[in-house]
């Protein structure tokens, strides 16, 4: 099973400069298990998506297709093989 994670420009330095990171989580892939795999592959990237307790950072948005995972099942959102997650910063801050 392979999941793609597409990154905004600002996060690519934490993934060897790549726009897409390929992740192979366990058979029952969820957003959370993808992030757990990222922890091993790209810890500096994972830290910027989730906090010390594994919670998605407040101003980080992760989309599955057109859906924000917060509107699905959050980190428990199940992912089909070949799914692509799009990471985008929210419009926030001054």
């Amino acid at each position, binding site marked *: 099973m392979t999941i793609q994670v597409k990154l905004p420009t600002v*996060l690519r330095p934490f993934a060897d400069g790549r726009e897409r990171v390929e992740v192979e989580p366990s058979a029952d892939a969820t957003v959370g298990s993808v992030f757990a795999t990222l922890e091993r592959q790209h*810890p*500096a990237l994972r830290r910027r998506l989730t906090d*010390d*307790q594994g919670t998605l*950072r407040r*101003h*980080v948005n992760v989309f599955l297709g057109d859906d924000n995972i917060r509107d699905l099942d959050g980190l428990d959102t199940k992912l089909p093989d070949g799914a692509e997650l799009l990471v985008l*910063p929210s419009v926030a801050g001054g």
Partner: protein
Amino acid sequence: MSEAVLLIGTKKGLWIGRSDAGREHWTLDGPHFEMQGVYSVGVDTRGDRPRLFAGGTSEHWGPAVFHSDDLGRSWDEPPEGSIGFPADAGASLERVWQIQPAPADQPGVVYAGAQPSSLWRSTDGGVTFELVRGLWDHPHRKDWGEGFGGQAIHTVLPHPTDPDRMSVAMSTGGVYQTEDGGRTWRPANHGIKAYFLPDPDPEFGQCVHKLAAHPDAPDRLYAQNHHGVYRSDDGGAIWKSIADGLPSDFGFPIVVHPHEPDTVYVFPLIADGNRIPTDAQCRVFRSRDAGATWEPLTKGLPDVPSYAPVLRDALCVDAGSPAGVYVGTRDGCVYASADAGDTWTEVARHLPDVLTIRAAVLS
């Protein structure tokens, strides 16, 4: 040739000032860490070459601590991060407010103070830190409050000669001290008022804004509080007001001259409810008698009306001779004095809010 470095942490990045040892003419480069609030900076001059620190917080991507061994030309951090709460702590790092190298006889030891209120200790020169559990597990922690800026340990004062002793300050919560290397901690706020609590003389819960001490007088501590400027002459057992002679007892920073334990600097603001400089003037106040009398320092500071506060870590000294003094304002100006505050020059203007500054003369 010796040189001087000045780190300016702002709401939107870090600027680095460089000068020769005379510290009269500065060049700035930046911003580094664009869009990150740089709430803590540090200069570790103990090793063969100086190491710079920057603690940044991205509103999107969270906090991180970076270090540089080439005076800020490049920055590094471990992939797993420098500071992170273990799973059983049930907390996540929000911000690093203080990075403090230990005294010279403890090479490699660096402390950090963070939000939520936590103390961290590094033994690898500030690359990775471990949580000081003795303070994190303190029974008072659930009762530590939260100030306007968040709940954080913002001052870490290692004892200059005894590695087992240390003072930290947190907002809110007050001053806490250890005498056994961080295993146990007790509050040290006797005499400090907390007018905002039902009991104005609580054991803890005071809102200390900053602590300062001089290595030659380790039992003398100075504190700028949320309404109150204090001194302790017995290592923090009892505090007494030294605010007489100041135009206000409210303010954020307090620092001690690097060579004169009786010389101390503050930047008064009118009041809690009116946080602008007293008399609308950008003035640092200096005492040369441990707080008995105070004088405003004005020469070279702006003589136009000024409404910009100075935050708790935006006043600092270097260890040069004569001493350098630096102040950064919330309207993005930085002023430097190369003669202990007698005269000042403008180093920067129109930067974002200045959150923290640190300076060092390097040999």
